[in-house]
């Protein structure tokens, strides 16, 4: 991405911040399920939660270059925190999300001191190790977490006192979508700021960044903490909308799934993660509906096809196509 025709860094960032018609269309489209596919609102709410989780991973992977195989640790921390608060009597969802996000952020802050010091394979394995340790600990602490059976007794109060969580999922989707959009706006602002540029520099060449005096470790710790908070918020919404929390929210499967969704959609583009979440979750739902026993096969084929045909994920491939189309016209 060259900035040949731009006057200076601040103007460059201003230009990036402008809303493109594609983005506006995307967000308007997220309202469609309410009218066009109300039978799928529950799926849509879980897609919105997954999208929020993928967004948090994109911030650290796509923009800061931290590959994590244990990001579900923060998602699960948020889910259990929100679940426990509700179980202990405070079922108000909005404050619940905030508290859960703070708890996950705290855990993220503490682990970020370790994370910031490693790169590549050691980093991947450390994130994996942290995730596995947390899951085992949660299983052992079954007096707190409910262990294998999961947390029971979660009851979420209506949002703002009026919107009850119904069987169809109207409230669930509306809630998840609203939180996703709000946090997305924040993330977008963050990415198109000097801090965001510094992160991209760290991702591409951290030695050089240090040479020019950027505080790489503290930047990494900051973005990691923010990503942990967002993952925690996603987990909290899952706990609140489904009123269930079990050990798999901390599991390797969840960490692997979110990584797959992000790579599928294209990392480092914010919207790539969202698109990846939509495609993966819808494909999984449809394939599993058609063939409950062997849908794995079709998902595998989808992933292989995307990698072979579209490098840089779906969004990467799309942008390549649009660039070629523009070059031709």
């Amino acid at each position: 991405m060259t900035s040949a025709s731009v006057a200076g860094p601040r103007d460059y960032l201003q230009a990036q911040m402008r809303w493109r018609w594609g983005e506006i269309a995307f967000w308007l489209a997220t309202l469609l399920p309410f009218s066009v596919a109300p039978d799928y609102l529950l799926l849509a709410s879980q897609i919105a939660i997954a999208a929020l989780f993928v967004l948090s991973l994109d911030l650290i992977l796509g923009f800061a270059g931290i590959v994590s195989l244990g990001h579900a640790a923060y998602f699960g921390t948020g889910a259990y925190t929100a679940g426990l608060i509700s179980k202990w009597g405070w079922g108000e969802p909005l404050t619940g999300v905030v508290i859960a996000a703070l708890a996950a952020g705290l855990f993220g802050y503490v682990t970020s001191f370790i994370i910031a010091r490693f790169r590549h394979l050691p980093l991947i394995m450390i994130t994996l190790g942290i995730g596995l340790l947390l899951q085992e600990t949660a299983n052992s602490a079954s007096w707190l977490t409910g262990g294998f059976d999961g947390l029971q007794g979660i009851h979420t109060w209506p949002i703002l006192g009026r919107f009850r969580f119904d069987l169809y999922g109207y409230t669930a989707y509306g809630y998840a979508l609203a939180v996703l959009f709000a946090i997305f706006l924040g993330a977008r602002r963050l990415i198109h700021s000097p801090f965001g540029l510094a992160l991209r520099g760290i991702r591409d060449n951290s030695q050089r960044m240090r040479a020019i005096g950027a505080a790489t470790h503290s930047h990494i710790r900051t973005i990691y903490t923010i990503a942990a908070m967002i993952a925690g918020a996603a987990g909290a919404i899952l706990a609140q909308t489904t009123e269930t929390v079990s050990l798999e929210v901390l599991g390797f499967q969840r960490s692997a799934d979110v990584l797959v969704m992000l790579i599928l959609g294209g990392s480092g583009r914010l919207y790539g993660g969202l698109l990846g979440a939509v495609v993966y979750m819808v494909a999984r739902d449809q394939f599993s509906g058609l063939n409950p026993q062997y849908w794995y096969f079709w998902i595998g084929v989808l992933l292989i096809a995307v990698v072979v045909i579209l490098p840089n994920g779906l969004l990467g491939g799309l942008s390549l196509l649009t660039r070629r189309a523009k070059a031709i016209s």
Partner: protein
Amino acid sequence: MQRSLGGFAGSALALRFGVPLLAVPLLLLPLLGASAAYAQDTVKVGLIMSYSGQFADTATQMDNGIKLYMKQNGDSAGKVKIELIRKDTGGIAPDVAKRLAQEVIVRDHADLLGGFVLTPNALAAADVSAEAKKFMVVMNAATSIITTKSPYIARTSVTTPQLNHTLGAWAAKNGIKKIYTMVSDYGPGIDAETWFQKGFKDGGGEIIGSVRFPVANPDFSAFVQRAKDSNPDAIYIWVPGGAQPAAIGKALAERGIDTSETKILGQDALTAETALKSMGDAALGIITVAYYDYNLNTPMNKDFAKAYDGEFHRNPDFFAVGGYDGMHLIYGTLQKTGGKTDGDALVAAAKGMAWESPRGPMSIDPATRDVVQTVHIFKVEKVGGELRNVEIDKVPNVKDPGHMTQ
């Protein structure tokens, strides 16, 4: 199209508006399509199981049991035709299970829920059953609290306390004084340990030591050695099905434990067919408690096992019979209600229902809606050159002790 209301609320509206507005077509009201309060032509059963992933084999066996029942009894239960809608949870995923239960009711207009391999998934779906007032038949998940989570749940499998408490009491009565217990460190394992120890201690036995292994444990030698070091009369083991039963069976033999001197006690999965094949002669003498084994020597079971093997080329196991009897319950209750599918009618019909199953006599306890059945004690012996579970004792009419403490 009435989008804003689902089947179960829409039926009430249809009734209220139909009568004053449509005088002549009143006669045609019974034909007014898919509303829950009326006897229907097709009853849809939403089967929510873990068809893929780690627990896929359990779901396969349960599904086979379901298919066999429908093959033997036709796909009609009295006046109504049964249609199955299968949904995969992919493993332990209560959020997905809950969503699938909601979707199958709201989108596919299912009238009942069935299946449920795993406890967390069953607990999540129980909320949906309670809110939507749908009859839910649990065909496998074995934790006691499940049936308390919704007044519309009935279970046709077993509860962990039912089996392990009985085994503990049996062990104390049959000359075993000191036991070392070893279980997997998660919900069902801990449940089994608690109730086995209770049954054993109430019968006068002494627990001289216990250990819990991690859930995904590939190697048992360390734990088996610890058990051996404490010199018990018997060792009680609980591991989940899959690869672990064979692994621990072999570890016992490798560490030099002689089953004629130190008895080995466990639950059904420990001596499942593939586990026996892998363990070889190391399995001889292991005593297990189970609600079903394909070797049960009753005419009904012999026919069932033969039909199952003919259809699916493998022997049935307790998962299969849970599915088989689950369908029997669904058929039986629908026949009793004349095809009515509202939750209250079906649950009322289920309470107290009793029948002869390949596992023996069983019934649904009217107070707890849980299964009451004969609990069998098996020992591994060589029959015709092959290792089989042979019944050596049984305890009839066992209710779930887990409920009695609530």
